[in-house]
C-alpha cells in the first residue's frame, strides 16, 4: 500500500509537474535561488539573472553580506586555488593559455531597487592574497534585522574554464558547478564554534570543498537544442525556442547547491528505486555499462536507508563525463553526482561502482548533513569513505572477492588502499581537526579520507553493529538539514551509547598520535618441580643436589598423573601514542584458547599463566575490530614456524622471474 502511494505521488509529480517537492520543508530554507541562465556555447560563457531570497535566521543584525564567487578561483595563476594547486587537480591540468575562467557580477540590488553593486569588494579572510576574488563582501547601508527576509537581484556573467577541477567544459561537454554568486553561511554566537556572530565564508582552496545554507532552487536554463541536459532536482518543463535553443526548468527543495550538465553525446538511461527516479546520463560508447552504475546506486540507497535514514528526494541524476572531461568526475552535488569510467573497463575493476557509491553517499554526508567541508572535512569525506567501504564490502566484497580489483586472481579492497595511503604518508603530520587548506605539509587526502574512515571503522568495531547503526541513525536524524560540528557527532555517540567516548575522539580526531599494538614475545618456561639448594623439610634442612633432583623427577615421571607445568608469558606492547582497549587471543598446546582484555593504557602488559600446556600463539585484535592499527603485521606471533606462505609466494616469484628471463632470451 505504501509503495502504491509513493508511486502514485511520483506519477502525479511527473505528469503534473508542480513546484512542491515536500509537504513540509525539510530544512530552514535560508538561501533560496531563482536563476535564469543562458549558455553561450560558442564563447563558453553563461549569462544569468539570479534572485536570492535570504533569511537572517539569527538573532543578530546583519551589516554586510558575503558571497562565494568560486569561478574566480580559475581567473589567473595568482588566485589562491591556482597557487595551492599549481594548476593541477587530481591528475588533470589547467589550460592556462586558453582555458581559464571567472565570474563577474554586473549588477546587484535589493528587489526594491536599493543598489548594491558599488558596495561589492573582494576580501581574503584566509590568506590575505589580494589576487584572490573568490569571496565578495557587500556592506549594507541598512542592517538586516533578525528573522528578516530579503530579496536580492544579481545579474552576472561567467567565463567557464576548461574543466580540470570539477567545473567547466571540454568541447561540447559541460559540467557547471559552483557557478553562481552563492551567499555564505552566517553563524551566530554559539553556532558551531562561533564565539560571536560571523560570516563563515572561506576562499576557494585546493584542499577542501564547500559550505552553504539550505533552500529552494528554481532554475531555468536556456541552451542550444542539441544538448541533453541534467541537473539537480526534477525537470519541470522543456520548451523549444524559435532561435534553435530550448529552455529547461529544474526545481529542487531543501538542498544547498545546484549543478547542471549538458552534452549532445549523452544517452539517457532511467531506472527506479522505490520513490527515486534514477537518471543516468552516460556517454554513448559506455552505455552498455550503465547498469553497473545504476545497480551501485540502488545498493547504496538500500544500505543508507537501513543504516542512516531515508533519501527523501524523488530524483537522482548520475553523470558520466566525456573523455577528456575527467576533471569533472568523482564529484557530488545534491541529487546529482558525477561518476565516470572508461570504455571496456572490465567488471573486475570496480572503479565505476566505488565512485558511484562514494558520491551518492555524499548526499547524506554533506548533502543532507550539511557539515562545513572547509573546516571539518573529515565529517563528510571520512564519513563517506567509511560508508562507502561498508557498502562495497556488503555488495561487492567478501573473503573471496576484492571490492576494488577482482581480476585474474588479483584481489584488492579499496579500504586497503585507503589504509595504506594513511600509513605510508606520515600519519602523524596533522590531526583530523584541521582546516582543509591548512594541511600544509600534506595529509589532507590520507587523513581526511583514510584516517577518518578508519576512525569510524574502529568505532564500529568497538561498539558493534547494532550500537553503531543506532549512532549513525541518530546523528543523521538529529543533524540532517543542519550544520553539525565534530562535537555534535561526538555528543551523539556519547548519548546513544551511554558512554563517554571523549577519550577516543580526543586522541584520534583532536590528536595526531597513531595506534599500534605489538605482540612482543611469547615465552614458555617449564616449572621445575624442584630446584637445587638447601630446603627446609620435616626432616630438617636438606641439600638437594643434581642427583636428588633427578631422583625426584624420575619418580614424578613414573607417576601417570604427572604433567609438566609451564610458566607462559605473553607480552603485549603499546608502540603508538593512542591508548585503546584491545583483545588478546592466546592459544595453548592443549587446544585451550583464552580471550583476554587489556585497557591498552600502559606501555606493556604481561599475561602470565601456569598451565600444563605451552602458549603456542597469540594475536592482538583477533576479530579485526581495530582498523586504525598502523602495523597489523606485528599483532601476532606463533611459536611454530609455517613456511607455506614463503613457498607459495616464493615459487610464484620464481615463476615470474623465469618468465622475465625467457622474455629477454627470446630477443637473442
Amino acid at each position, binding site marked *: 500500500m505504501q509503495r502504491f502511494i509513493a508511486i502514485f505521488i511520483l506519477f502525479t509529480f511527473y505528469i503534473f509537474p508542480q513546484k512542491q517537492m515536500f509537504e513540509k520543508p525539510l530544512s530552514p530554507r535560508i538561501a533560496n535561488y531563482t536563476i535564469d541562465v543562458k549558455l553561450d556555447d560558442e564563447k563558453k560563457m553563461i549569462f544569468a539573472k539570479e534572485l536570492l531570497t535570504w533569511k537572517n535566521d539569527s538573532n543578530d543584525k546583519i551589516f554586510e553580506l558575503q558571497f562565494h564567487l568560486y569561478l574566480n578561483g580559475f581567473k589567473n595563476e595568482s588566485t589562491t586555488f591556482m597557487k595551492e594547486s599549481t594548476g593541477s587537480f587530481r591528475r588533470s591540468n589547467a589550460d592556462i593559455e586558453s582555458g581559464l575562467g571567472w565570474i563577474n557580477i554586473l549588477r546587484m540590488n535589493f528587489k526594491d531597487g536599493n543598489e548594491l553593486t558599488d558596495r561589492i569588494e573582494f576580501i581574503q579572510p584566509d590568506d590575505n592574497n589580494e589576487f584572490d576574488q573568490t569571496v565578495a563582501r557587500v556592506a549594507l547601508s541598512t542592517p538586516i534585522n533578525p528573522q528578516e527576509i530579503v530579496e536580492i537581484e544579481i545579474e552576472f556573467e561567467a567565463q567557464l574554464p576548461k574543466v580540470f577541477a570539477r567545473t567547466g567544459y571540454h568541447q561540447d561537454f559541460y559540467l557547471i558547478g559552483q557557478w553562481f554568486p552563492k551567499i555564505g553561511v552566517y553563524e551566530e554566537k554559539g553556532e558551531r564554534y562561533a564565539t560571536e556572530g560571523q560570516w563563515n565564508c572561506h576562499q576557494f582552496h585546493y584542499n577542501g570543498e564547500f559550505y552553504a545554507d539550505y533552500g529552494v532552487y528554481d532554475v531555468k536554463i536556456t541552451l542550444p537544442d542539441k544538448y541533453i541536459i541534467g541537473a539537480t532536482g526534477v525537470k519541470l518543463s522543456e520548451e523549444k525556442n524559435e532561435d534553435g535553443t530550448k529552455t529547461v526548468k529544474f526545481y529542487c527543495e531543501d538542498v544547498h547547491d545546484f549543478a547542471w550538465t549538458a552534452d549532445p553525446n549523452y544517452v539517457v538511461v532511467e531506472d527506479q528505486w522505490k520513490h527515486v527516479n534514477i537518471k543516468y546520463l552516460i556517454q554513448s560508447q559506455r552505455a552498455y555499462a550503465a547498469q553497473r552504475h545504476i545497480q551501485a546506486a540502488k545498493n547504496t540507497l538500500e544500505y543508507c536507508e537501513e543504516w542512516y535514514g531515508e533519501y527523501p528526494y524523488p530524483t537522482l541524476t548520475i553523470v558520466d563525463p566525456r573523455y577528456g572531461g575527467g576533471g569533472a568526475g568523482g564529484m557530488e552535488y545534491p541529487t546529482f553526482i558525477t561518476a565516470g569510467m572508461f570504455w571496456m573497463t572490465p567488471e573486475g575493476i570496480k572503479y565505476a561502482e566505488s565512485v558511484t557509491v562514494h558520491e551518492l553517499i555524499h548526499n547524506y554526508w554533506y548533502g543532507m548533513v550539511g557539515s562545513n567541508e572547509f573546516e571539518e572535512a573529515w565529517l563528510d569525506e571520512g564519513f563517506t569513505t567509511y560508508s562507502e567501504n561498508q557498502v562495497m564490502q556488503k555488495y561487492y566484497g567478501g573473503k573471496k572477492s576484492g571490492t576494488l580489483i577482482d581480476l585474474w586472481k588479483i584481489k584488492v579492497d579499496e579500504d586497503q588502499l585507503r589504509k595504506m595511503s594513511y600509513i605510508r604518508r606520515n600519519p602523524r603530520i596533522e590531526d583530523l581537526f584541521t582546516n582543509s587548506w591548512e594541511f600544509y605539509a600534506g595529509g589532507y587526502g590520507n587523513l581526511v579520507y583514510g584516517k577518518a574512515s578508519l576512525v569510524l571503522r574502529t568505532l564500529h568495531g568497538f561498539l558493534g553493529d547494532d550500537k553503531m547503526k543506532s549512532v549513525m541513525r541518530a546523528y543523521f536524524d538529529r543533524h540532517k538539514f543542519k550544520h553539525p560540528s565534530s562535537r555534535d557527532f561526538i555528543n551523539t555517540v556519547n548519548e546513544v551509547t551511554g558512554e563517554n567516548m571523549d577519550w577516543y575522539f580526543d586522541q584520534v580526531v583532536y590528536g595526531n598520535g597513531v595506534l599500534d599494538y605489538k605482540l612482543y614475545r611469547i615465552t614458555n618456561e617449564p616449572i621445575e618441580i624442584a630446584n637445587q639448594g638447601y630446603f627446609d623439610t620435616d626432616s630438617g634442612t636438606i641439600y638437594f643436589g643434581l642427583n636428588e633432583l633427578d631422583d625426584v623427577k624420575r619418580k614424578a615421571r613414573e607417576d601417570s598423573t604427572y604433567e609438566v607445568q609451564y610458566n607462559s608469558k605473553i607480552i603485549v606492547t603499546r608502540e603508538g601514542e593512542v591508548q585503546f582497549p584491545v583483545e588478546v587471543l592466546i592459544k595453548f598446546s592443549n587446544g585451550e584458547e583464552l580471550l583476554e582484555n587489556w585497557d591498552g593504557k600502559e606501555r606493556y602488559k604481561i599475561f602470565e599463566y601456569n598451565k600444563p600446556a605451552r602458549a603456542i600463539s597469540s594475536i592482538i585484535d583477533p576479530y579485526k575490530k581495530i582498523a586504525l592499527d598502523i602495523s597489523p*603485521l606485528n599483532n601476532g606471533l606463533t611459536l611454530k614456524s609455517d613456511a607455506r606462505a614463503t613457498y607459495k609466494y616464493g615459487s610464484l616469484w620464481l615463476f615470474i622471474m623465469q618468465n*622475465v628471463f625467457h622474455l629477454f632470451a627470446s630477443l637473442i
Partner: protein
Amino acid sequence: MISIFSAYLIGIKETFRIKKLVFLLFLIQFFFAYFLTKPFSALLTKTFSNSPFAEEILTRFNYVYFNIMFSEIGKGVSLFGQLIPILILYILITIFCTAGVYWLFFTKSEFGWTDFFKNCINYFTKFLKLYTASFLFYASCFIVLLLLLRIKSSLTANAISEVGPIILTLINISIFAILISLVIMLFDYAKVILISENYTSLFSAIREAYKFFIMNFIKTIGIYLLYVLTGITLFVIFKIAAGFFETDTLVKISLFIILSQVFVFIRQYLRLALFDSVIVYYQSTLTAMPGMLNKEMLEMAVLNYEKRAGEKSE
C-alpha cells in the same frame, strides 16, 4: 623444399636428442631466477614464518600486509638491485649456449659436451656481435612505435570518445609486437647463415638473412606461428591445470611448483625445437631440387658447409 609442419616436427624430434642440453639450459635459467628470488623469500620468511597471518595470505593476497612487508620490514632490502647485472650475465650465457646449439642442430652432430662447448666458444663472439647489432633494429622498432603513438595523439586530439584512442593504441602495440617478432625471425636466420656460410661480415649475414626471409616470407612466418600456437596451447593447459586447486597447503603448493617448472621446461624445449625447425627449413631450401629426401639435403648441406669452411680458411 620441406613443409613447415615437417620442419617443426623434425625440430621437436631432434631436440629430444639433446635433452641433456635442454635440461642444462633449464637449470641455468632456474638458478638465475632462484638467485633473484632469494631476497624476496627471505623477506617472506622474516615476515610470515612465525605469524598467524600466514594462513590469511594463503587463500588471498593482502595488499596491506605486503605493503608493510616491503616498506617496513623490508627496509633496506633490495629486491631488484641485482636484476640488471644478473640479467646481463644471463643474456651472455644464453648467447654463449645458443651459439653451440645452433652449431649442433646445423651439423646434426652427435651430442657431446666437449664439442658443444668448443663451438660455443668458436661462435660466441660472432653471436654476441649479432646480438648487439640487433639492438639497432629493436631501437628502430621503438622509434616506429613512438612515431605511431605521436600520430595517434594528433589524430585523436579532439576525440569525443576514448574508443578511437584505445583502438589505435592497441593497433600500435600490435604493430610494434609484429615488428619485434620480424626482427627476431630475421636474426634467427642470420645466426643460421652465420654458422652455415661461416660469414665473417656481420652485415653480410644479416643481408643474406633478409633476402632469405623475404623470399620465404610466408613459410618462415608459418614456422613461428606454429611455435606461438604451441606455446599458447601449453599456457592454456597450464592455467587450467593450475586453476583446479588453491595453493594453501604444502601438497598443493608443491604441485604448483611442479606444474610451473614442467611448463617452464617444456617451453624451453619448444624454444630449442624452434631453432632446429628454422635450421631444417633453411637447409631444405639450399638445393631447389624437388623430390629429394630431407636426409640427402642435410648431408649435402653439411658437405657444403665443410667445403666452404675449408676453402675460406685456406
